[in-house]
């Protein structure tokens, strides 16, 4: 199982010293599939790296550096577009980690620009972004209505010149989810950056990342999310984090994330039965970069929908998507 090897290499970089060629191939394929190759590249000590692996890791680091630069530029452009609105714009996820020069940002793969803004400012934000060149990715009346009625974000937009996506969030989880984190409190306690943008407080960064990983979604990219959490944890005061998680209704999730992060990337932790299932899902990746444990992966996919909305609504949603030709991967 190469996902297990990847986790071991991140936890104890010196352990790669004993790898043979097939081990390296598996490690590299799994790290690429989990989008952790540049993170791994930063972790490993060059003394343990064979000559033929060195350029692969150098390329990965250069890619991550370019992505960080691009992400900061996108954030800068969004700041400019929203400048006149007098709205707090909070950077989320990868862009925030890079903007805040956090350990979680080192080698982090960054896809879209994610921002959080107050819900009552959404119409003005949407208008300003469209005026600055962002447009809807796909025009679909059902998806659009679905996002606006039930989701925690606008449908994704893409910039017409730069081809980069932006996700505008007004809260952390879908409105139909069972937990309702306090987005207003997150925005109120956000930390200002030099360019007028904000990032979440040390505690809220963890709560947000945990909500994304364990209370939403199907754990695709979960190893990367858990690595983020592992890197974010030392910045937070444990008591303050527990209190904050309680306030957002995510105390259990944050506690589980701590156990998993410590078990996989740290000194080890006692795991519950449910933790072990999640760990099995997270490690479902072989040495060719393929997803394994299909039934378990599918079960987590079903769970992600179950978490997102009540059963009857879920049934109606899946039926509509099925008729439109969507099939689970």
């Amino acid at each position, binding site marked *: 199982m190469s996902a297990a090897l990847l986790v071991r290499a991140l936890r104890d970089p010196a352990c790669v010293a004993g790898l043979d*060629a*097939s081990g390296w191939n598996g490690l*590299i394929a799994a790290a690429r599939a989990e989008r952790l190759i540049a993170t791994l590249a930063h972790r490993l000590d060059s003394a343990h790296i*064979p000559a033929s692996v060195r*350029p692969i890791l150098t*390329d990965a680091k*250069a*890619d991550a550096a370019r992505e960080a630069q691009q992400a900061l530029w996108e954030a800068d452009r969004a700041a400019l577009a929203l400048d006149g609105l007098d709205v707090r714009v909070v950077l989320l996820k990868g862009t925030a980690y890079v903007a805040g020069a956090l350990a979680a940002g080192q080698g982090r793969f960054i896809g879209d620009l994610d921002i959080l803004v107050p819900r009552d400012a959404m119409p003005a934000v949407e208008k300003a972004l469209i005026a600055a060149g962002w447009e809807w990715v796909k025009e679909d009346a059902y998806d659009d209505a679905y996002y606006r009625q039930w989701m925690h974000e606008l449908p994704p937009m893409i910039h017409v010149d730069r081809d980069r996506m932006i996700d505008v969030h007004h809260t952390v989880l879908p409105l139909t989810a069972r937990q309702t984190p306090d987005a207003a409190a997150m925005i109120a306690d956000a930390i200002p950056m030099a360019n007028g943008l904000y990032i979440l407080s040390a505690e809220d960064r963890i709560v947000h990342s945990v909500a994304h990983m364990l209370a939403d979604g199907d754990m695709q990219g979960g190893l990367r999310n858990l690595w983020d959490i592992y890197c974010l944890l030392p910045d937070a005061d444990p008591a303050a984090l527990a209190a904050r998680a309680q306030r957002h209704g995510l105390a259990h999730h944050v506690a589980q994330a701590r156990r998993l992060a410590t078990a996989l990337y740290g000194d080890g932790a006692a795991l519950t039965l449910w933790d072990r299932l999640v760990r099995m899902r997270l490690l479902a990746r072989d040495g060719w970069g393929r997803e394994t444990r299909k039934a378990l992966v599918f079960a987590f996919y079903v769970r992600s929908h179950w978490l997102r909305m009540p059963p009857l609504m879920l049934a109606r949603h899946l039926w509509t998507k099925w008729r439109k030709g969507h099939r689970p991967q």
Partner: protein
Amino acid sequence: MRHAITLRIGPATFRIGSAWSQPIAQLRRLYAAYPDVDGAIADFTVRLQPTSLLRRFLRPSIFITGDHGLADAAPMSLAHGLLAAEMGMNLQMALGWRRHLLLHASSVEKNGRVLVMTGESGSGKSTLAALLGERGWRFMGDEFALLDLQSGAILPFPRLVSLKNQAIGVVADAVGDARMGPLLAATAKGDIRHMMPRADAVARMDQGGMPALLLFPRFGHEAAVRELGQGEIFMRLTQASTNYVTLGEPAFAGLTRFVTAVPARAIDFPSGEAAFAMVDRLWEELA
């Protein structure tokens, strides 16, 4: 994966895995003269996997992916498995290669100096490179020319030459059947057959050369030679590169150097013979 092979082509090493034996067996035969790198650490992993569980056995259908993949890649029939493997390698290069500026171009070399030919699919650049490789030039590649941004040299990437439709017969006549792969009939791009480069192309695949002439060939037109402005050449080459934007400023500087140093012409030609005469003359005059 159940069946696997590792191949090195120029500076890049590929680990190719397949759910079926046929594509790997074909690669093994056609790449027999290439360096033996079995089990080496690879730059890229390519996977030929079934589009679904059922499609492994019933009307087998290949999904091409790997370290880098496209979610909406069209599935291919197992009969075209060799083409799928070649496309899988191209995909990794196009999306993942960072060590050189990648130009969608063919290239051949003579006396240490390189002729680069770029154009869209169907322009005749592959066929021309393959045939020049039989006429005193060293074949360097038919798909990607690798521009080294430090030295300005072009490096070879001499995989199998992919020939389409009418070009198949022309090249098979010139090189003989023993160097040709199986006919892959009715692919999405028409009929395709692969040709093994000559032994010298494989033996010298680590030796680059300085570019001396750039041509934009176009097959199927009255013979004509046109000059192009440097601005147009530059723009066309950025469009012919999959990693120009990714490589950033060094790519801009390296391509600027290439465009200002290398003479270039667009050539139209009605036949292979006409093209050889034009290439010889332009090489004589400009290179």
